[in-house]
């Protein structure tokens, strides 16, 4: 096994040599920086391969031939190897991303970047308490040095604050380390772990000091202004490193130190993390500057990971997989978003609207936003499912609530941003764009890694993995065939629906059969209508296939997890369908918020149902446990939240609902069929608005189609289906929703479908 000391030697050695390089060697220095990052990455890959194949054993490496406590000990196991790989790959792509800036501004900063990545690696490997302090300081100094890369006063002020704060934190950590030595006579972490049972009060205080120092280093709410400024003012390439690599190293360091702490200290950390997640996301709601918004989101996500690490005594063994799922998603998505932000000139959320004309970047942006919002198939989705069910199992309802509410806040600002980028009318005209192919490499690789991470996360689920992915194949197929004309794609999808119905419907029984027939018939009707559309309808067919796929998966789901997975797939599909409509931004956002809020309630309900029955199948919903009514209320609210979201969208947008009959009564004619109006009619429709002619070229807007979002032909099918979905699920659970629902939502009672919703049947 290659010794981790090679990373130390190569980092310090090359860092020192590059510091001496002159201006003429700038290009060569840059190449060397990239080469050394590749070297680090290769070492990490070599370890992972060795551990995976069983040829290496996790082991300690001691410096200078002495045993601890007289030497420094570096420990490398599978966890260390994976985390160092993450940091080194980020280091490589950061070097690539910053290449031109490094060449232009200051060539010796390449050396500082190497020292920073080396320092972060060492924080992961080292088992010596004092050595940790040394590398904490090395990373703080080198990071502050890198912030000098951007020659602007805001970055300098932010860098100074960062340096001051992190030095003070390190000083408190040092005090803890020295007290630990005073109390135990050793600085070797493993020595302290052995003596954990009979630590002196002095050592306990020391551990508390060290843990709190590292928790503050992770920027908990509200002690995080110093780090937010770095996210906002420093070069986005640096933001990516702080958000991704530094957080990764610090979280792992905390994991090592918390091994010494008591259960109470762990739970305190968990509470700090959960509060940070909740309040950072709350603060994120008010942000208008993309990088500061990303800063709040970063702090929130790290808070969530912190919370999971603190919950180690509660969650038991799977805790590290959950923490890793959250961390990996945050690491990949946030680095990607910071990198994208470096390509966009403009400091407002609206300046990102320029991505509309860059399909690849828009897909990357969407991938990162959906991953951060914990949608399938990203690792965060699986981690959140496991976390919430784990918390419900162990009765930590308060933490569960905080994390669910924090997730909702996060989704609100992320999707508001996504809506602005894809649909806002307020595109910033002056916003420029600056992209080098080398800058695109990192986001592309990281987005791919997010999908790969999701695929591997599925293996670690504690719930049985019985998801049928076949319904999602048409989504991929139609996405690849999106260049074909609409009628052809329509026919293809119709055929796929037909084939699926032919083979699978006969196997269904009972309610599965009823709802299978309803969904399939609805799909066929929708697609028949699709023949009236001309052109290519870009993007429509993969999305509608995604929605159908989600519905089929709902019918087929036999486990709580499978159902929740399908629910989220359907939500994503219908969200995009609504977003495709004109002027749909606020409606799509409300739809997403209420759907996601509903999904969180369903998640909570499922988690509680599993907690009281111990079952992972949908049978868990049939229970006579005292909290069954609560579960029922949560699920009902969750299911119908989604349906209400359509109506509430209009309330949120501040527009009165105008029913079709009212339109007729007002003499507007049917606004939704106004294509049939005569050319000389005083009223006419353009887009989603009704106008009155005032002159040859003049018109007054009389009314806007209040249901524009879900009345758009493309988005018109979401609501009604989901009403049925809710009913279906209640039926499966052996309850009678219609009776209950008719009181709450009379318009949903039988016979009332279609009054506001375009239910296709």
């Amino acid at each position: 096994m290659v010794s981790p000391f090679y990373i130390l030697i190569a980092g310090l050695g090359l860092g020192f040599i590059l510091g001496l390089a002159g201006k003429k060697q700038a290009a060569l220095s840059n190449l060397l920086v990239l080469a050394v990052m590749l070297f680090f990455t290769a070492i990490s890959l070599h370890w992972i391969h060795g551990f995976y194949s069983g040829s290496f054993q996790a082991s300690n490496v001691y410096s200078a031939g002495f045993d601890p406590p007289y030497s420094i000990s570096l420990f490398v196991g599978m966890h260390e190897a994976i985390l160092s790989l993450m940091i080194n790959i980020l280091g490589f792509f950061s070097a690539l991303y910053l290449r031109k800036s490094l060449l232009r501004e200051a060539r010796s900063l390449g050396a500082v970047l190497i020292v920073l990545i080396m320092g972060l690696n060492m924080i992961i490997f080292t088992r010596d308490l004092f050595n940790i302090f040394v590398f904490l300081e090395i990373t703080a100094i080198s990071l502050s040095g890198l912030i000098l890369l951007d020659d602007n006063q805001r970055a300098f002020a932010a860098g100074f604050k960062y340096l001051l704060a992190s030095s003070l934190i390190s000083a408190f950590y040092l005090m803890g380390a020295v007290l630990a030595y005073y109390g135990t006579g050793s600085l070797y972490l493993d020595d302290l772990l052995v003596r954990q049972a009979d630590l002196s009060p002095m050592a306990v205080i020391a551990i508390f000091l060290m843990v709190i120092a590292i928790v503050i280093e992770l920027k908990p709410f509200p002690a995080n202004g110093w780090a937010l400024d770095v996210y906002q003012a420093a070069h986005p390439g640096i933001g990516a490193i702080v958000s991704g690599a530094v957080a990764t190293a610090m979280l792992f360091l905390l994991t090592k130190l918390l091994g010494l702490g008591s259960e109470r200290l762990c739970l305190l950390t968990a509470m700090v993390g959960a509060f940070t997640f909740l309040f950072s996301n709350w603060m994120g709601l008010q942000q208008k500057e993309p990088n500061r918004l990303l800063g709040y989101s970063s702090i929130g996500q790290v808070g969530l990971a912190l919370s999971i690490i603190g919950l180690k005594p509660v969650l038991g063994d799977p805790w590290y997989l959950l923490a890793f799922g959250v961390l990996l998603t945050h690491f990949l998505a946030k680095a990607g978003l910071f990198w994208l932000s470096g390509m966009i000139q403009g400091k407002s959320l609206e300046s990102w609207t320029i991505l509309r004309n860059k399909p690849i970047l828009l897909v990357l942006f969407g991938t990162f936003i959906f991953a951060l919002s914990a949608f399938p198939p990203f690792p965060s989705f699986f981690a959140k499912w496991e976390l919430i069910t784990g918390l419900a199992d162990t009765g930590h309802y308060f933490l569960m609530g905080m994390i669910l509410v924090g997730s909702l806040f996060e989704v609100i600002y992320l999707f508001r941003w996504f809506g602005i980028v894809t649909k806002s009318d307020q595109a910033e005209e002056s916003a420029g764009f600056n992209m080098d192919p080398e800058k695109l490499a990192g986001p592309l690789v990281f987005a791919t890694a997010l999908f790969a991470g999701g695929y591997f996360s599925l293996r670690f689920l504690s719930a049985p993995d019985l998801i049928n992915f076949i319904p999602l194949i048409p989504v991929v197929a139609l996405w690849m065939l999106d260049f074909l004309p609409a009628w052809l794609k329509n026919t293809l999808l119709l055929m796929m629906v037909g084939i699926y119905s032919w083979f699978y419907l006969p196997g269904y029984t009972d309610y599965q059969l009823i709802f299978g027939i309803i969904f399939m018939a609805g799909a066929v009707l929708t697609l028949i209508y699709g023949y009236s559309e001309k052109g290519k309808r870009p993007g429509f067919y993969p999305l509608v296939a995604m929605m159908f796929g989600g519905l089929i998966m709902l019918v087929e789901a036999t486990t709580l997890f499978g159902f929740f997975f399908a629910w989220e797939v359907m939500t994503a599909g219908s969200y995009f369908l609504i977003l495709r409509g004109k002027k749909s931004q606020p409606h799509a956002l409300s739809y997403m918020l209420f759907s996601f809020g509903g999904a969180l309630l369903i998640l909570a309900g499922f988690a509680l149902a599993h907690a009281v029955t111990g079952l992972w199948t949908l049978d868990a919903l049939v229970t006579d446990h005292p909290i069954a009514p609560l579960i029922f209320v949560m699920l009902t609210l969750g299911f119908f939240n989604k349906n209400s979201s359509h109506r509430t969208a209009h309330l949120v947008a501040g527009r009165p609902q105008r029913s079709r009959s009212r339109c007729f009564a007002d003499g507007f004619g049917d606004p939704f069929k106004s294509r049939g109006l005569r050319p000389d009619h005083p009223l006419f429709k353009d887009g989603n608005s009704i106008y009155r002619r005032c002159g040859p070229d003049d018109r007054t807007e009389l009314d806007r189609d209040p249901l524009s979002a879900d009345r758009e032909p493309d988005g018109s099918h979401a609501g009604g289906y989901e009403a049925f979905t809710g009913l279906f699920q209640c039926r499966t659970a052996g309850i009678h929703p219609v009776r209950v629902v008719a009181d709450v939502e009379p318009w949903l009672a039988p016979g009332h479908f279609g009054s506001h919703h375009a239910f296709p049947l």
Partner: protein
Amino acid sequence: MSITIDKVALVLGMILMLVGLWGGFTRTNLLKIILSFSIFDTGLNILIVALGYLPGRTAPIIDGVVVAADNLATRAIDPVPQALVLTAIVIGFGVTALMLVYAMKLNQHRKSLDINHYTDLKW
């Protein structure tokens, strides 16, 4: 309880740390903030040395009084805290130097060392 040199140093170290913290939080001049940080750091270093001190012993240097194999363990004080302090002093030097670079850069941009003049981002 007798007053010994290590206790004096311990109290002095703590006082210096508090002075440094107070200065760091109350001053608005960048140089004074940096100076306060240095005072805090010095106080911490004194505290560490004082914690490692053992009454009646000498420096852990092998010479006429301390002979390694013989009486190192009984005559010399613990060398580890002193080694730590040496490293901490070097690191403190690096941090202070970088802070001064920042103060210089900020001063070049706005000709001011007062943090109230750098409120573009919240302090």
